[in-house]
């Protein structure tokens, strides 16, 4: 389904706000950035009170006539791993893409309802999706490094966001945090496409965390990888949750059980059936449908 979304996209953003971003790459005047700086100042209290960093209220998404998400209410806690599971076509990827407004890139997609990121509705008219995506990084299902060198891939975000001071150090730190540094430190100017699939995906994670976002969205990051590469990515995700809020979509229920703190179960029709602590979901779900899905009777 993610693939369909990618290909159907005609790379056009209908919102007028993007145009202002294109003409002024300097984001400092952006309301969202100011907002997020304010919130950064109260990080500690937010974490203590367990306040959600992302919260959706009655979020509906339509692709043309089809409704992909039905009135989703979900609050994602800060600095934890939140997993979204469910059968194919249940809208979990769609929800993920609502968070950083990647659905804007699809002409046919229409979003109704509110989605708050650090207290601001990201679908407000004065929100620039470009500024939003600078706070919320994303890792895709298929590793998609740019056909550039390893170094340039990690430095890409830093360069486009004008964070060009100490760029060497930042690249090294990002690669170390993504547990890739030891494998690539001698070949930073080699093409990223020469890496193995698992290395490419860790490179994509390094690319996403290099710019130090608040949230990392992962859309089935290990589904195209072999078991060894998958376990490396899983270890990495658990480490990343110490510093970032991680939201991960996965098909693999064991994976969700292993790495996530909270789990949201979407079922066919774009409906959020249950959202709770991961242990609770897998051991004692409230809903019979969720139990059927988890035990493999359905889906």
């Amino acid at each position, binding site marked *: 389904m993610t693939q369909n979304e990618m290909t159907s996209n005609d*790379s056009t953003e*209908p919102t007028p706000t993007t145009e202002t971003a294109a*003409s002024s790459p300097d984001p400092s005047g952006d309301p969202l950035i100011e907002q997020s700086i304010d919130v950064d100042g109260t990080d500690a209290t937010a974490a203590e009170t367990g306040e959600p960093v992302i919260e959706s209220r009655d979020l509906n998404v339509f692709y043309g006539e089809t409704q992909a998400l039905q009135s989703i209410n979900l609050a994602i806690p800060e600095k934890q791993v939140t997993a979204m599971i469910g059968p194919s076509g249940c809208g979990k990827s769609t929800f993920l893409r609502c968070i950083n407004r*990647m659905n804007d890139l699809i002409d*046919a997609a229409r979003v109704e309802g509110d989605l708050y990121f650090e207290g601001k509705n990201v679908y407000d008219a004065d929100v620039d999706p*470009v500024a939003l995506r600078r706070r919320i990084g994303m890792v*895709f299902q298929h590793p998609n490094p740019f056909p550039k060198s390893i170094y340039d891939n990690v430095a890409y975000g830093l*360069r*486009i966001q004008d964070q060009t001071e100490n760029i060497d150090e930042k690249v090294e730190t990002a690669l170390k945090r993504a547990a890739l540094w030891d494998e690539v430190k001698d070949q930073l100017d080699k093409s990223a496409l020469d890496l193995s699939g698992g290395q490419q995906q860790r490179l994509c994670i390094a690319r*996403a965390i290099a710019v130090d976002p608040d949230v990392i969205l992962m859309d089935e990051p290990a589904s195209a990888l072999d078991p060894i590469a998958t376990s490396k990515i899983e270890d990495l995700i658990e480490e990343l949750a110490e510093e970032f809020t991680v939201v991960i979509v996965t098909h693999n229920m064991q994976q969700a059980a292993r790495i996530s703190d909270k789990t949201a179960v979407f079922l066919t029709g774009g409906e959020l059936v249950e959202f709770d602590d991961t242990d609770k979901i897998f051991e004692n779900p409230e809903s019979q449908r969720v139990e059927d899905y988890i035990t493999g009777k359905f889906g």
Partner: protein
Amino acid sequence: MATRKPETGWHGENSDVNHLRGRAFEATCLALTAFGLVSVMLLLLFVANDAFRPLSADVGWLATYAVTVVVPLAALAVYYYRLDEPAGEVAYVASGLPVVGLLLTGGFAVLFTELLSVLEWFALLISLVAAAGLIVAHGRLRPKAALERLVVVLLAPVVTVFGLPPTRFNWLVTDAAAALGLDFGLYYRVISLREAIMLLPFVPTDWVMLLLTLVLPAAGAAGWFVEQRRESRRDGLAVVGLTTVAAVLGVVAGPLLGIGADVWLLVVTFAVLPLGVYVEGVLRRGEGVRGLAFPVVAVLGVVAGSLITGALGFAGPDPWLDWGFLTSATSRTAADAGIYPSMVGSVMMIIVIVLTAFPVGVGAAIYLEEYAPSQGLMGKFVTLIEINIGNLAGVPSVVYGLLGLALFIRVLQWPQGSIIVAGLAVGLLILPIVIISAQEAIRSVPDSFRQASYGMGATRWQTIRQVVLPEALPGILTGTILALGRAIGETAPLLMIGAAASVRLAPNSFFDVGSMMPRQIFSWSSELEPAFRHGVLAAGVITLLAVLLVMNATAIVIRNRYQRTG
């Protein structure tokens, strides 16, 4: 031992599989393909025979060259093909590089004799470098000022190359300043850096300027390439040093051998340097070294052949397409007729087309692919535009000629049949092709790259500039070069805008009346004397085809490179 089941005949003639229709269809397709290929081949052979007239040579001459050149080269080719494939590749490149290099040399030599002096070239290049320096310096000093940068990017080249006109031509600026109570008049023309250089009381000699503007940049680029490849700064510097020494030595020794300094520098830049770097690389890698024998055998064969035929007194053929044909103007006698002025006209026309149709076409393609809405009423409008661009690609070329005649000659009053009018009319003709092929190239950039870039918080401009365009560029170039191949052979628009049937002197400026190769060929076709229609015409056609072949080969090389790295 288990007994085998009796055969039921499922596999033989009784089976219900029927291949007959499929085989017949395959054979028909093969026959049609072969028919097309063979007819074109026959036509080309016929024309080539007229142009080169190999049968006008003595049998001994033909036999000598067959023994010294054809047989050894054929033997080598078979050897490479059967036994040593990497060597075959090396042979291919090592023979092709000097040919392309010498063609480029010829092109630049024509440029310097017809279009601009070495001094003008030098001044232009220095001014452009200065403009680029200004833009880069501004980017360093004020990295955030995007609008200001746009102004600098647009104005810097204008100021350095053209200068500023006096403000009486800019009454808009003067009046606006006067309204604000400012005396902003620029009463004299501010001359550009380019003109300032040309007015200098003393300038370096031609060969020094060429050394600075052509040889050293090329050597620097090759040196950088070698340095990257080997990770050895010493080797890179060696390339630069050796090239410079070869260039200077040639300048000193050249006159003794009758080679002009300028020509020698061009040869060093375009032929010796690339060939040297390539051969050195092959020798170092030690793979396919035997391939280097191919060009050596070819040259030795030609030298031996000419010595033998000279000694034995065999007469060579008397081709229509010879050096004289390429370097002289057309004439009333077929034997003296040449294609040189119209070749220069064609090249200048291509320059106009590249400078106009390429930016416009690529810009339009980027807009249509990356910015234009695809939904709603505007999306329908965009679809309509795209369909019509497709239709425009199919409009007969004579119609574009008519458009050029009406627009540039009748409305803008530009000289009839001038190079610029020809270039713009043919440029309009290939514009839809450039747009469509650039769109294809941009569309072929995987969407996952765009997604990754947007996901990183890149703006659309950053995504296009840093991800889409670098990936699409080889495809865009390939499409454009193929479109230029179409442009160079167009005849009908040239007839409509009144390009000269034939000219004695090559055009010196873009507003001069010129002839182009297809126009010249067309006028030869209506000459009364049969020698023109059979000989000179064929030579012209072969020249045109050779130029086309080189352009298409360039496009193919770019495409292959792109596929290998991508």
